[in-house]
């Protein structure tokens, strides 16, 4: 077959020559995107990976209490507490006290066993004076050391690599003897919030589609002068600060706000019994729909702009009614815009946080508000990371579903 090869002018096979020149082009292209790639890796991918690793990695106990960690790892979590475990604990407590690490250790164990903070701190203060047998010394100091649940909590805290936080994120809890069990019913919250987050995101997406589709249609089909005006009206809120828009909704919807005053004036509500439109789920839905609307309208508009009016005219000339022409001819061509807009709105909504925080009250909070709580208030960054991981899995799952149902190639941003 070699005699049929096509050669370039200098005698090298054309295939090879082509590969060479393609390689140079690719190299240049890579060189051009390199700065952006470096930025994305260093400022986006690495921090996310680093944060996600906190969901399964926690050395706050094992690095500060090494002897006790070894002893706890050997313990099965059920049999009686041994002198060796107590001795390792006392020796670590003394060291942690001297290094001023006792607070970190105590707060870590306290997440598993309420009351550990004061127990560890007070015991470590007198640990230096303890004499063997250490188990009795601990019990003499505080009878809580006799509680097996405390030691089980310590064993869980001593795991450097743990699935405990991810289990927490789905309302489960690690057992000291291995495996998982459901979280105490009164402390279950995350599943509820994940479901609510998806529900709110879904409703917001549908609402945006219903409200945005006619607007985008008008913008794409009206004469340029009118449609430009519409475009500006759509973009104006988009350019306004998110906080300003959310606060404006508070002024509009609150009990003594504009909407309720109007309702009272028109006799829809009476003055004593005004509607609760804000600080609840309704408030979150209204404000989020408004804020997300441009993200739906813009992709729809840019897709509709490319749909030639000739198709609808052709359909009508062949006797289609207005509705049939729209539904059978126009609508299918706008589906890529619907796909793009819906995915954009849904994924933005699922991680939304400022608006629910301000107008959500108690039943309009989303999972991101709990992540924020663990980042800023409780300082349980590991749990925040685990919740973020679960959220990421959800987003990827919906992305996959979307790809299967609509096909990602069908998505068009313009």
């Amino acid at each position, binding site marked *: 077959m070699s005699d049929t090869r096509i050669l370039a002018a200098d005698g090298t096979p054309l295939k090879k020559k082509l590969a060479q020149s393609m390689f140079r082009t690719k190299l240049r292209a890579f060189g051009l995107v390199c700065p952006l790639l470096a930025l994305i890796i260093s400022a986006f991918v690495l921090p996310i990976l680093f944060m996600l690793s906190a969901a399964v990695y926690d050395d706050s106990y094992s690095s500060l209490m090494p002897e006790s960690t070894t002893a706890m790892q050997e313990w099965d979590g059920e049999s009686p507490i041994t002198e060796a475990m107590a001795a390792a604990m006392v020796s670590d407590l003394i060291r942690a006290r001297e290094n001023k690490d006792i607070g970190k250790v105590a*707060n870590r164990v*306290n997440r598993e066993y*309420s009351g550990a*903070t004061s127990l560890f701190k007070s015991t470590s203060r007198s640990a230096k004076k303890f004499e063997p047998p250490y188990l009795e010394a601990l019990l003499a100091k505080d009878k809580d050391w006799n509680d097996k649940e405390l030691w089980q909590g310590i064993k869980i805290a001593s795991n450097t690599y743990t699935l405990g936080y991810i289990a927490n994120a789905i309302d489960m809890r690690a057992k000291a003897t291995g495996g998982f069990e459901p979280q105490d019913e009164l402390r279950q919250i995350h599943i*509820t*919030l994940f479901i609510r987050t998806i529900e709110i995101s879904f409703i917001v997406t549908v609402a945006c589609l219903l409200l945005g589709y006619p607007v985008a249609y008008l913008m794409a089909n009206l004469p340029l002068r009118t449609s430009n005006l519409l475009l500006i009206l759509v973009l104006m809120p988009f350019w306004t600060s998110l906080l300003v828009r959310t606060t404006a909704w508070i002024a509009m919807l609150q009990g*003594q706000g504009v909407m309720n005053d109007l309702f009272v004036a028109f006799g829809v509500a009476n003055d004593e019994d005004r509607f609760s439109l804000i600080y609840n789920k309704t408030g979150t839905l209204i404000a989020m729909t408004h804020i997300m609307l441009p993200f739906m309208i813009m992709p729809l508009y840019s897709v509709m702009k490319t749909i030639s009016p000739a198709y609808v005219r052709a359909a009508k000339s062949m006797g289609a009614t207005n509705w049939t022409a729209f539904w059978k001819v126009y609508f299918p061509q706008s589906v890529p815009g619907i796909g793009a807009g819906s995915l954009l709105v849904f994924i933005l909504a699922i991680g939304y946080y400022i608006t629910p925080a301000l107008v959500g009250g108690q039943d309009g909070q989303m999972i991101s508000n709990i992540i924020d709580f663990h980042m800023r208030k409780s300082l349980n960054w590991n749990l925040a990371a685990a919740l973020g991981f679960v959220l990421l899995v959800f987003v990827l799952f919906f992305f996959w579903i979307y790809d299967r149902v609509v096909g990602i190639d069908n998505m068009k941003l313009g």
Partner: protein
Amino acid sequence: MTFKKSMTMASAAVLSLAVASAASAESLTVVSWGGAYTKSQVEAYHKPWTKKTGASVVSEDYNGGIAEIKAQVEAGNVTWDVVDVELSDAVRACDEGLAEEIDPAILPAAPDGTPAMSDFIEGSVTDCAIPSIVWSTIYAYDSSVMSNGPKTISDFFDTANFPGKRGMRKSPKANLEMALAADGVAPGDIYEVLSTDAGVDRAFAKLDTIKDDVIWWEAGAQPPQLLADGEVVMTTAYNGRIFNAVASEDKPFEIVWDAQVYDLDLFIIPKGSKNKQLALDFIAFSTDTQRLADQASYISYGPARKSSAPLVGSFHSKPSLAMGPQMPTAPDNFKTAIQNDFEWWADNQDEMNERFNAWLAN
């Protein structure tokens, strides 16, 4: 442009940079809770201290908690020099190694010679923190809306006789205590009852009775706003914020002192502050007897030094308004006061926060 000229310009630029950084070395970033409270600190501490030392103070606001301090310390880029924190956060920051230790020897004695350690409220000076004020969580109502207003903590939970929305802080702190007090637990027994599972259930059951009528707030400036807007008929609040709305803005708000939950605010220095010496000087200056008394004439938070009490005068812009009776520590206000137990909260906050969040979401 000649070579010489451009060199001159470059060196001038370098010089001005050096001057700028020298100037910023003499500036201290003090972080506090914003609004009327920060204003009182600016007037009573920052301005006199700048006058004395020539160093400037940059004032920043935050919403409490030690997350930002933790982030700064762990990133090795500490930009805050002095932070005003609650007692439980002060203890936690110290435990977790996020705050510099402060030698109480830097604190000046009282004018009559009493050493600082016995002048401050007992046990309030901790390893890393120096207290400045006593503040309190109270509840308040608008007397122009309710002429025959609530009197006791039970009235706050009584939606039959006092219908309407209530504002509460979105946190179990102070709410659990007030709920138990409203359920008839004596102020001294609150934490004993809370230490049992049944006690916690009882507190949440009491909160349940008004859950549907509550608007939750987070920042201290919100409750006076909620009251002023008519969004709530009564709300828990920090007493100074309500006082400020009454004194400076002539709002018709009344404070109910029954079962007030009082706490301390303290100054800490984040670990690794670049201006530690300056920060220490600022803290020593700001917590002396006169400064603490001065601060009390801008907002109704009680000074943390006993020797400051006799020096507390009247409201800075209203000489007729004596500040003494406005303090949480005034005898008439203090009868049923509950002291926030930071140790109990240190032990139980993880569990209580989880349970509170779950209770809220369901």
